[in-house]
């Protein structure tokens, strides 16, 4: 539906509403721009068109037959009716056919509540089935990876097959057999333990392909959702964090054509349990033990007084946090450094510039733009004149030698520091699911994440804790919200000039110096 420049616009009417779309657009996509959702199953904007479910049939004036709106291009002056008696009857007929062999086991189906078969049946399907004969039965099958196939619920839309074939470009799924014996098949040894295979669960419009991780965990209508960014690597896939009560139970990709199309990788998708960790740092502390926030902030400022800040931070922390850490470093004549854990890169071949990146952190680019240095050993060179500031790292990863060498230690952590040999102040901070902020992906795209669950105990967003420390050090940093902190950063740092939370929106914006798509 992207229209390269100079594409001619075509004018048509859909359900009485005039629309203008680029030539070559399908009626189905054109209808979306008119605010009309034409029911469909096999069509998915991220996949090649199949035109086979026949659910999206619409009436096009002067055409003797109903037309599949997903596979019919718009034409000038076309008059399209979605809710016209013949088209309504045809779609009702398709729904009846899809349901005759369907087990109708919604009460035990994970898809219930976000199932397109349920939705469209409720919207315009038949109220009763006329089937008087036994239903077809096929056994459920573990497809490997995170995927379970429940064949009885399958409507053979082939979205999963087309995803694996055209997008993953690793055709391990097929349609096997013919007629009503057809099922989604695979071969011995050819399972879905593949980097991006979990997306078949998302593209499946019904409860046929399920996440084993999410199996029987929650009813989807009990879930709360917040837009966020995956921190599994530097790609910055847009995601939805889904919580039940206050626990994160599922991550889902959130479409963004500029970053991750409709997809996310299994590495990122299944890596969320840390968000629910129980060993959290929930109360501030000074060297003398648990305290209130004011005492801890004062202890931290005292530790920095007269010492260079040697700051080592997680490169998945927000831009706002790196900016404030940079200010602490500047105030004390210190440095900010970070290490980047890496892993094998796993591209999604059918999508543009999308991969599980080797850098398994979310904000190395932002950290770099904000003056932090990437180092193999960011703890190297800590001396007695330094205050070691550790921002959102695991205590197990902090070398004892660095603690011993440092003149003072300040802990800003999501997890409890445990018994560090030296600790002047510990400030409990929120993790990415618990606060608002922005991250900059490897292409320089600044993207917002929203809060999905409450922070534990007395934990506060890291930007807020740092703002307090800066003020205790005599700096101007009276920000009440993440947005204010971001605005101050945008005013101060040229790469972010002109950006606001409003202009970034939920699709992100690219930093000034970085041309998108450049390596």
């Amino acid at each position: 539906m992207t229209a390269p420049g100079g594409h001619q616009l075509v004018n048509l009417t859909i359900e009485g509403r005039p629309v203008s779309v680029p030539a070559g657009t399908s009626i189905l996509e054109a209808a979306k721009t008119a605010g009309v959702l034409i029911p469909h199953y096999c069509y998915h904007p991220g996949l090649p068109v199949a035109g086979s479910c026949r659910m999206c049939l619409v009436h096009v004036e002067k055409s003797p037959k109903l037309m599949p709106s997903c596979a019919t291009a718009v034409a000038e002056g076309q008059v399209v009716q979605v809710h016209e008696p013949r088209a309504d009857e045809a779609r009702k007929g398709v729904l009846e056919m899809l349901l005759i062999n369907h087990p109708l086991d919604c009460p035990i189906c994970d898809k219930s509540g976000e199932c397109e078969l349920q939705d469209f049946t409720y919207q315009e399907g038949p109220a009763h089935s006329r089937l008087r004969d036994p239903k077809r039965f096929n056994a459920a099958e573990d497809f490997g990876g995170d995927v379970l196939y429940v064949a009885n619920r399958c409507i053979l839309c082939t979205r999963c097959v087309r995803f694996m074939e055209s997008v993953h470009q690793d055709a391990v799924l097929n349609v096997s057999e013919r007629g009503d014996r057809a099922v989604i098949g695979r071969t011995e040894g050819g399972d879905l333990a593949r980097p991006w295979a979990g997306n078949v669960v998302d593209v499946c419009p019904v409860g046929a392909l399920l996440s084993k991780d999410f199996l029987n965990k929650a009813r989807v209508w009990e879930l709360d959702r917040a837009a966020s960014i995956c921190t599994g690597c530097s790609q910055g896939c847009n995601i939805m964090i889904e919580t039940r009560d206050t626990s994160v139970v599922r991550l889902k990709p959130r479409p963004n054509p500029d970053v991750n199309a409709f997809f996310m990788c299994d590495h990122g998708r299944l890596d969320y349990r840390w968000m629910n960790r129980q060993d959290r740092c929930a109360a501030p502390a000074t060297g003398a033990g648990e305290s209130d926030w004011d005492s801890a902030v004062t202890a931290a400022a005292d530790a920095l007084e007269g010492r260079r800040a040697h700051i080592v931070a997680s490169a998945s922390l927000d831009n706002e946090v790196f900016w404030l850490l940079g200010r602490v470093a500047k105030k004390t004549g210190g440095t900010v450094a970070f290490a980047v854990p890496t892993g094998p890169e796993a591209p999604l071949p059918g999508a543009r510039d999308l991969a599980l990146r080797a850098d398994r952190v979310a904000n190395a680019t932002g950290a770099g733009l904000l003056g932090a240095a990437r180092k193999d050993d960011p703890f190297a060179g800590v001396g007695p004149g330094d205050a070691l500031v550790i921002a959102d790292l695991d205590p197990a990863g902090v070398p004892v030698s660095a603690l011993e060498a440092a003149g003072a230690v300040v802990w800003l952590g999501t997890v409890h520091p445990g018994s560090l040999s030296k600790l002047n102040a510990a400030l409990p901070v929120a993790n990415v699911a618990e606060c608002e902020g922005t991250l900059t992906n490897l292409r320089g795209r600044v993207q917002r994440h929203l809060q999905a669950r409450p922070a534990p105990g007395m934990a506060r967003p890291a930007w807020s804790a740092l703002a307090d420390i800066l003020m205790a050090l005599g700096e101007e940093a009276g920000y009440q919200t993440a947005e204010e902190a971001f605005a101050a950063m945008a005013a101060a740092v040229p790469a972010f000039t002109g950006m606001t939370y409003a202009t970034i929106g939920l699709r992100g914006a690219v930093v000034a110096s970085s041309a998108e798509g450049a390596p």
Partner: protein
Amino acid sequence: MGYPHKPHPRETPVISKHFGDPEARSLAGWKARGGYRALEQALAMPPAAVIDVVKNSGLRGRGGAGFPTGLKWSFMKQDDGKPHYLCCNADESEPGTFKDREIMRWTPHALVEGCAIGAYAIGAQRTYIYIRGEFTEPIRAMEAAVAEAYAAGLIGGNAMGTGKQVDIHVHKGAGAYICGEETALMNSIEGRRGNPRVKPPFPAVSGLFAQPTTINNVETLTAVPHILNNGAEWYKAMSLSNPKSTGTKLFSACGNIAKPGNYEVVMGFPFRDFLYDLCGGPLPGRKFKAVIPGGSSVPIQTMAEAEATLMDYEGFVAQGSMLGSGGAIVLDDAQSMPRMIARLTRFYAHESCAQCTQCREGTAWTTKILDRIVAGHGTFEDLDTLLSIADNMTGKTICVLSDSCATPVVSGIQKFRDEFEALIAGRRSSTVAMGGHAVARAGASA
């Protein structure tokens, strides 16, 4: 292998003239019977002139749709710099139809010649003759003929010494009725499941290997050399009724009839005479009850309709059916219409490619209901349900397999409702064979 019958005096053997003559199968024998003169003539003409002759002859596709052949050929853009392909549809799988089988068995060189002329006319460097896998004998005959034609330099990189490339290959199917649908056939050649493609794009724009492609039936291509040899006017003059239906046509007859087989008659021949005279009428002591005249996918005719029919494209339509592939399935008064129709829908359920919802589910559901009615467990409501399902299956899918399954159900219930109702009411007709054999295992293939 059985020899065909001697032509009936009222037949007009053109294509079938050499059926049963084993010598016509070899290249030498075929040449002695006038073979390859038409190809030689064609190669000396501009392609557009060849297309004009075919256009003027009025030849229409013999595979079922009846589309004018010359017009179809003219859709191929000459000199567009793209590879062009010709596909010969020899996937003859329509129940009741077995004419192409006999053409390939007896006169394989006629088809090679027809393909070569067609390929030249549309600028196709390559032709694939797609023969259904079950046709083992026709495949052997065609492969031998193609090899002979290559060896003699009639086709190949320098066909008949003209410098034109005319390559022909036999491609063997593997058991799928739907591959007779033109785009399914192309997918099958490309090494895919035989799924029909969404159209547009049409084959002349993007067909085999996404290149401009024309697809013609065996009988259509076999008629072409005769048209070139004898002229368009000769062919056009062979028409007994509607001038839009020209030439001769091989009609097949099978089922409950005295002399089943292939008969070549001029378009417009009276169907009544065909059934009672050429084919010898019903079996002893029986009466005809119904005819499915154009292969199993066309509406069933009552005998009153059949006997009033003139055998051409328009004539069958005028009597509630279609010419289709020209294969007549004749059923007599010993047959149960519901049982015969149930077996037909089972065929379609077995052959549905599984893409479109209405077809995948509808063909199977229809069969379940019909089987239940035949088994004596039907309800009157079932008939309404069948008609409603048939309506959902008609005109709404990628190809017409779904429609083809619905057609005999609708026409069968409309025209023979009493037989369905008798079964539902528990009154099996004593004169009708119901058969005790369980025709189960729709998916039974090893």
